[in-house]
């Protein structure tokens, strides 16, 4: 009854599409299963398996499993906190950032770190798609890195263009397929060494510490953990959002373990190669194709959502523009002989150290700062038309930079992503509390939002 009452009184107008600037209404919320599949679609990518393979080259299987469990446990905790915020706010990450960064601060931070990083990864993944297609089907014009990047990028744009429902369709189609083919890739590896017992008995000494392994696992997925409200805002309840995240991390852990075992047994760094060894050519192709597609359309979707906070046009046009730019970068690199996006990947990785800092500030603002102010948990990020946000929260903005720098670059002990998150969140909370106590304004200017969320 209460839900229906809220539904009829939904006070917003969604003029840009896909609720990019306004809270998701009750009638547009999706089931927990739907949430789980869309999240699983994001991790069902060859890049994750390559990450697992990288672990497999540094650790024996037993140590790698410990590192994966440790890393996934940390990610579960951080992502779970943020998933709950996103579901309660029913808004994107960039709208949630308005509370701790101010209106213009959230536009700046969201676009720089959500938009450009996600767009950068879209270009990288599209280029990687071209690379893998050219290695699976060499010698054809359509499978050259440049051409494969173009048609791959355009296809990935289509689902992001349609919006969240298309991400769901594709994830339904791709996730069971992907998991089954991963399993077969694993079997091929296990068969090569003679059985599972032999795989675990392979006692080669790990060349890196367990701690380094946990760091790698966290680094692989911390960005997604911070940006997860973009997806989980559609969840019906906070519990279903958190549960979807937890189950997703369990799946991630299993996929990484599978990749480690495969690498340990075959030495292949790419599961598609393993599948081709088993004579599964079409399967390998679809595996790469669907895997990259489900992940990369989410990158583009996130890019469009973040840019929509300050470029006020329909989200689908932003998706096309961003898709063309990303595909163009991938194709250019693909066509230029001998060029690579690896330097760009390093740049994105460095920039990515600031994402956890932003997550830390969001967590500190929602759970700690507003907890001290005794705001009820379920209304802390409850946005309404006419609500006033500051234009800029100088503490949020400066602590994101300071936390990201100290935690990610200056401190040499600990896990960089966690350091950034804790330092930025801790400083934000302490400074905000102190400023309130000694009456120093922590916010600059005011902006009242209309019923379109602008």
């Amino acid at each position: 009854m209460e839900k229906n009452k809220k539904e009829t009184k939904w006070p917003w107008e969604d003029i840009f599409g896909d609720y990019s600037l306004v809270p998701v209404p009750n009638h547009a919320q999706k089931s927990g299963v739907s949430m789980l599949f869309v999240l699983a679609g994001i991790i069902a990518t060859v890049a994750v398996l390559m990450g697992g393979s990288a672990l497999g080259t540094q650790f024996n299987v037993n140590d790698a499993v410990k590192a994966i469990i440790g890393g996934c446990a940390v990610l579960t905790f951080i992502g779970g906190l943020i998933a709950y915020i996103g579901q309660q706010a029913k808004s994107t990450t960039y709208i949630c950032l308005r509370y701790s960064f101010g209106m213009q601060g959230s536009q700046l931070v969201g676009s720089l770190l959500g938009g450009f990083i996600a767009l950068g990864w879209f270009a990288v993944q599209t280029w990687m798609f071209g690379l893998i297609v050219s290695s699976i089907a060499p010698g054809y014009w359509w499978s050259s890195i440049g051409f494969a990047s173009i048609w791959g990028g355009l296809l990935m744009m289509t689902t992001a263009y349609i919006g969240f429902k298309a991400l769901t369709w594709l994830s339904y189609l791709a996730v069971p397929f992907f998991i089954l083919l991963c399993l077969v890739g694993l079997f091929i590896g296990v068969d090569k060494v003679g059985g599972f017992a032999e795989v675990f008995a392979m006692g080669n000494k790990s060349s890196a510490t367990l701690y380094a392994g946990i760091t790698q696992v966290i680094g692989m997925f911390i960005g997604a953990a911070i940006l997860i409200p973009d997806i989980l805002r559609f969840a019906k309840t906070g519990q279903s959002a958190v549960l979807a995240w937890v189950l997703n991390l369990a799946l991630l852990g299993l996929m990484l373990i599978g990749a480690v075992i495969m690498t340990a047994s075959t030495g292949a760094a790419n599961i598609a190669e393993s599948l081709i060894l088993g004579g599964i050519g079409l399967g390998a192709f679809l595996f790469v194709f669907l895997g990259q597609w489900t992940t990369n359309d989410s990158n583009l979707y996130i890019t469009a959502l973040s840019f929509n906070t300050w470029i006020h046009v329909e989200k689908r046009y932003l998706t096309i523009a961003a898709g063309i730019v990303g595909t163009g970068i991938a194709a250019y690199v693909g066509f230029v002989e001998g060029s690579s996006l690896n330097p760009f990947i390093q740049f994105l990785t460095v920039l990515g150290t600031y994402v956890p800092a932003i997550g830390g500030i969001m967590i500190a603002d929602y759970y700690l700062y507003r907890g001290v102010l005794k705001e009820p948990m379920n209304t802390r990020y409850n946005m309404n038309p006419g609500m006033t946000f500051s234009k800029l929260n100088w503490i949020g903005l400066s602590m994101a930079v300071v936390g990201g720098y100290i935690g990610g670059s200056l401190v040499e002990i600990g896990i960089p992503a966690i350091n950034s998150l804790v330092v930025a969140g801790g400083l934000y909370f302490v400074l905000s509390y102190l400023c309130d106590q000694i009456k120093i304004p922590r916010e600059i200017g005011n902006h009242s939002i209309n019923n379109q969320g602008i």
Partner: protein
Amino acid sequence: MDKVKNMLMLITVLFATVLVLGILIRDDNIYAAIIYGIVGVSAGCLSGYSYYELSNQTDQTKCGKIIVFSSWMIISLSLAGMCLFLSDFLMPAESGFAYISFSLCFVGFIGSIYDLIITSKETDTPLAI
């Protein structure tokens, strides 16, 4: 929805057959048997459950959601089956089993697309539940 119901029954039988074929080849190729088993049990249970719900459920909306979700899963599993069953790694000594399984998956794939479209239209269920 009678046509959907009949199709669900057919798909359940098809994937039960895949499961039986998996059992038959277990001594020959254990990896193939496991994959046949996973595809057969998962798709068979999903279609069987959808059939059961459609037979007993009066709530069309709930029924529509169950069939739409099951159909998506069966489409994905059938596609995987079609890609895998004829591969060298999963080919049993009696290759006829592989061709039969491939054909069953193909029919399951087409049938589930039919179920998905018809159910979505007739029950007004969105394709993304």
